């Protein structure tokens, strides 16, 4: 069955280019994509995921406030009945050039299943999605 992804750029972030490309690439790769575009709140992500019975939520953050914007996202998902939903985050998710291992650790601690560094190409995300959604 075709898997459904909810896609969007979190917070007050308006970086629209990568989002449009991810939308295109995921769709080409055979996913059903619910693209919320830029400036998406945690609530909007969750609402859309419930409505579309999504298999995964793909969060982009480019502008540096990712760490503030993502706080408590997993807990909100749990509360909304999306327990265990696949959560990805990627982009330039923190302010500045920081060692990726540390950043990854912090976001994994926040409950994200996978964390991607700056400029990860869509091929990589797609490969991971296939892997993570295979047994679901």
């Amino acid at each position, binding site marked *: 069955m075709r898997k459904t992804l909810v896609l969007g750029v979190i*917070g*007050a*972030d*308006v*970086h*629209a*280019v990568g989002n*449009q*490309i991810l939308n*295109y690439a995921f769709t080409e790769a055979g996913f059903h994509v619910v693209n919320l*575009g*830029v*400036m998406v709140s945690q609530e909007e992500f969750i609402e859309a995921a419930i409505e579309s019975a999504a298999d995964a939520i793909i969060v982009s953050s480019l*502008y*540096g*406030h990712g*760490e*503030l914007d993502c706080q408590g996202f997993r807990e909100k998902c749990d509360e909304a009945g999306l327990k265990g939903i696949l959560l990805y985050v990627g982009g*330039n998710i*923190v*302010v*500045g*050039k*920081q060692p990726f291992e540390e950043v990854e650790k912090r976001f994994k601690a926040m409950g994200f299943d996978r964390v991607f560094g*700056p*400029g990860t190409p869509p091929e990589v995300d797609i490969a991971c999605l296939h892997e993570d959604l295979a047994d679901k």
Partner: protein
Amino acid sequence: MQLSNKKWDLDYFMSQREEVLKAWPTGSEVDLDEAIAYQAQIPKEKRFVTKLNEAIKAGKTLIQPRAGVPLINEHIVLLNHLEQEGEADLLPTTIDSYTRLNRYEDAQRGIEESKTSGKAMLNGFPAVNHGVSGCRMVTSALKAPVQVRHGTPDARLLTEITIAGGFTSYEGGGISYNIPYAKNATLQDTLFFWQYTDRLIGLYEDAGISINREPFGPLTGTLVPPCVSNSVAILEALLAAEQGVKNITVGYGQCGNLIQDVAAIRTLKQQTEEYLHRFGYKDVTVSTVLHQWMGGFPADEAKAFAVICWGSAVAALANATKVIVKTPHEAMGVPTKEANAAGLRATKQVIMMLADQAIADGERLEKEMAIIHEETDCILSRTLELGEGDAVLGTIRAFEAGVIDVPFAPSRFNAGKIMPARDNNGAIRLLDVGRLPLNDKLVAYHKDMIKQRADAEHRGVSFQMVIDDIYAISKGRLVGRPQ
């Protein structure tokens, strides 16, 4: 009041002002007369307008970074470093994204968390939260003049606080800080908000304090055709001038093709002056700024230096009044002060090596200039027609109609019908002209140029070309050709 391109009545402005200053406690610190007096004692050589005018006269290109961190002292250290180690001629204060959306409470949280974590948790300087006194600590600590750089649809309070805070230049505009920076803000709202900003600057002008204004040229920074960004810049210049602004820097984001870039900067200056004159604004000084490559950067620092240096060369050869400088960290995140200074020093070296040089003029350059000139005239005349002669109404209707259309913009109020791609020489053309009111000859020209490239690459014209072009510079080339 009915929105139109008319200078605001002073009383009306003052009544609005009362509301604006209430939006956050620091608003109460602003006293216009005191602020004018404060601005009046800033030495001439620390004013933006002075530096720009000197540069125009000497035919020089000044260099300016982007930079902003959440806390005042750290911000001063940062700007000091860029001035001393980066040889910056002009300084910025980049505002964080929460402030840009008037989310001052989130900004406050960012300030607090930055203090406790010892890490910058905001992507810029929250000037509103720091207030007039905080801003003055910054602007008075430096030798070079300082500009506010942001991306704020409703920047009224920010303008009040920062200009009272001693900044002598202010970036943005009702179009250029909406379409690339917002999703749901209407042009009606943002044009109105920016009339406020411009009217305030006009008041300072009336008091003999000249503040530089700079529409944000690059828009989304991603394959924006020169005619689109030039049209927006010219419109914002007209709107600012009507409210009393007298010193304007029109901007442009490097496209990557030397001839197109030089042609764009030259026509931008020419046509801005042309339109200002045509509408009776005869005492406005126009300077230009070239932004080094505003799209996706290569992650490798050596390659990033290459992109920076080529942008610097273009700025010098186009004789832009200033150049906004990127850093070797661009692809990764907000740069360290060292990386920022390195970008500046590389830029300074190129600018100085090219200081006494100019591009060889020639037919190709003239042709490119003629094309941009004609395209821009097509767009602007239709815009003004739609507005029945009024630039504000025209702007709103032009965006509705897709007559002005910015590629890859997040705004709901942008048509998003045009599709840009590079031609075989790397110049940006239109794969799909959308509803831009270009004449048949121009439409055919774009089609032909894109087809020439497709033929050279043995592939059909398609969206894949656009994607390839978006990634191209970060992958080490200008034109995204199939491998």
